[in-house]
């Protein structure tokens, strides 16, 4: 698989190169290492969500549901059949992917806010389903959740919560693979079809693009990738409950997308890092944290709809930094300065 080294790929690889080296300085700080691992996890969820919402224009709110389905599936499989988490994670991805296809099917008949409503309904019914007798029979542990999930191991070495480095580098590897897959899809003919359908669906259809097929494909792929990282999350955290389906995480993930900028890869990845650190930084503020996050969403949507990507990768119009520069140095002054020099 040959990839052209575009600006967005360079930024992504630079982020991962820095991350590769960060543990040299902070590997003894368990708290910071945990935040970094969570950043790697959420970056995949945010990038997958961005692929379906930002690049394909399908307003789905089901991404956390697919994440949880992947997590529970991997945990249940490894517990029930005593399998390796390395098998559990792709299995979680497959179950989440199939669920994504099932959710996607009715959504193909709907548009805009109605897709958001259906997918949010899936999010909302997942918690009662996991807690129900049916869920308990499947091994979800009901209201209690799953309390002992197998940790990961590699060549006989079992990962421990007191040693974050193996977890970190595994998360780094899996998230990089998932994000490279997202990047590859965006720059492939599939990505072209997704964007075409988002921009002008009737025109896309008139040019031979099968809208039904590609919308279903994007549902399947994004839920598959989210499910894989959900599986990793389950084995990393070691405990699963339906609390993760609460609105807090939903709002934080939304902030990740808004900070990063919709449809501006790897904006969502950068958004995931900023929002995760911001969330931890605001933790002492208790309930006010979500209030601040909610306010941040409103402010960003109004004043920076393209998110951080507007600054990092200005496309159509000058980004905020350039706009400030132009205000400070109007055209005449810039011209005189350049003449002086």
């Amino acid at each position, binding site marked *: 698989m040959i990839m052209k080294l575009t600006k967005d790929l360079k930024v992504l690889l630079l982020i991962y190169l820095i991350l590769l080296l960060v543990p040299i300085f902070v590997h003894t700080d368990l708290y910071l290492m945990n935040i970094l691992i969570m950043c790697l996890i959420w970056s995949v969820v945010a990038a997958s969500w961005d692929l379906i919402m930002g690049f394909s224009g399908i307003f789905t709110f089901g991404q956390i549901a697919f994440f949880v389905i992947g997590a529970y599936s991997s945990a249940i499989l490894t517990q029930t059949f005593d399998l390796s988490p390395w098998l559990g994670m792709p299995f979680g991805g497959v179950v989440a992917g199939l669920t994504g296809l099932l959710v996607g099917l009715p959504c193909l008949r709907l548009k805009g806010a109605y897709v958001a409503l259906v997918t949010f309904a899936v999010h909302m019914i997942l918690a009662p389903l996991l807690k129900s007798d049916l869920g308990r029979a499947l091994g979800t542990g009901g209201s209690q959740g799953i309390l002992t999930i197998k940790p990961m191991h590699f060549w006989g070495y079992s990962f421990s919560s007191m040693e974050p480095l193996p977890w970190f580098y595994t998360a780094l590897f899996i998230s990089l693979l998932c994000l490279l897959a997202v990047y590859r899809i965006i720059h492939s003919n599939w990505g*072209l079809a997704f*964007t075409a359908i*988002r*921009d*002008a669906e009737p025109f896309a259809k*008139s*040019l*031979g*693009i*099968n809208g039904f097929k590609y919308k279903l494909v994007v549902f399947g792929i994004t839920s598959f990738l989210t499910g894989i990282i959900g599986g990793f999350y389950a084995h990393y955290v070691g405990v699963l409950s339906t609390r993760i389906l609460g609105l807090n995480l939903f709002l934080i993930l939304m902030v990740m997308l808004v900070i990063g900028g919709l449809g501006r890869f790897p904006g969502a990845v950068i958004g995931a890092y900023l929002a995760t650190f911001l969330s931890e930084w605001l933790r002492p503020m208790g309930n006010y944290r979500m209030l601040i996050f909610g306010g941040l969403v409103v402010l960003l949507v109004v004043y920076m709809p393209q998110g951080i990507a507007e600054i990092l990768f200005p496309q159509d119009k000058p980004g905020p930094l350039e706009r400030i520069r132009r205000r400070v140095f109007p055209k005449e002054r810039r011209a005189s300065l350049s003449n002086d020099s």
Partner: protein
Amino acid sequence: MSLKCSHISKQFGRLKAVDTLNFEVQTGEIFGIAGPNGAGKTTLFNMITGMYTYSGSIAFDGRELNGLPAYRICRAGIARTFQIPQLFASLSVSDNIRAGAHFGSRRNKPEAETIEEIIDFVGLGEHRDHKAAHLKLLDKKLAMIGAALATHPRLLLLDEPIAGLNPSEITQSLELFYRINQELGITILIIEHFMKVLTELSQQLLILENGKKVCLGPPHEVTRDQRVIECYLGEDHD
């Protein structure tokens, strides 16, 4: 025979937008369609290209199109443009054309070659890498035609392709339509309000009113038809 529409009708609630219409378009000709607003012209295009369901039969080179989805009709050799330019605004001109070449064409010709040929053909060389959203109206229309041509159609449907253009842009567009027809051998079905343009351009002219055929024939005959003068042209037409 290229396109044959037999007893086709389309109804929206109580409104019959297209009412039991019959006509044939011959291979290689330019076929004009005109009529007052609401006559059913664009609805007819939407039916032919699979955007709307309908009753009756539309056959293209002997193949029945009724029931086929839009993307399969494109792959059968029918491409179209839209009255209000529809483009993939966030993509470059070359990517817009690539979409047509990759998804709509069944030829094995390399995509890059097709894209370059089409860009040169429609004259968008200097805008190759520009985003479609930033193009001026004429260039948007040319890019839309380019993307449609990239599907290698045998029949091209143009919906009011010169609306909103200035006289020099209209001349440039008409030259392009002739070249599409003559050099590429593509049959053209064109909706237009400018009767002068239609009479110059087309070999057959169909006038619609309230979804029904008022008149069909060579333009010089159609423009003299009393029913056409009454319902569409008016007594003072040139």
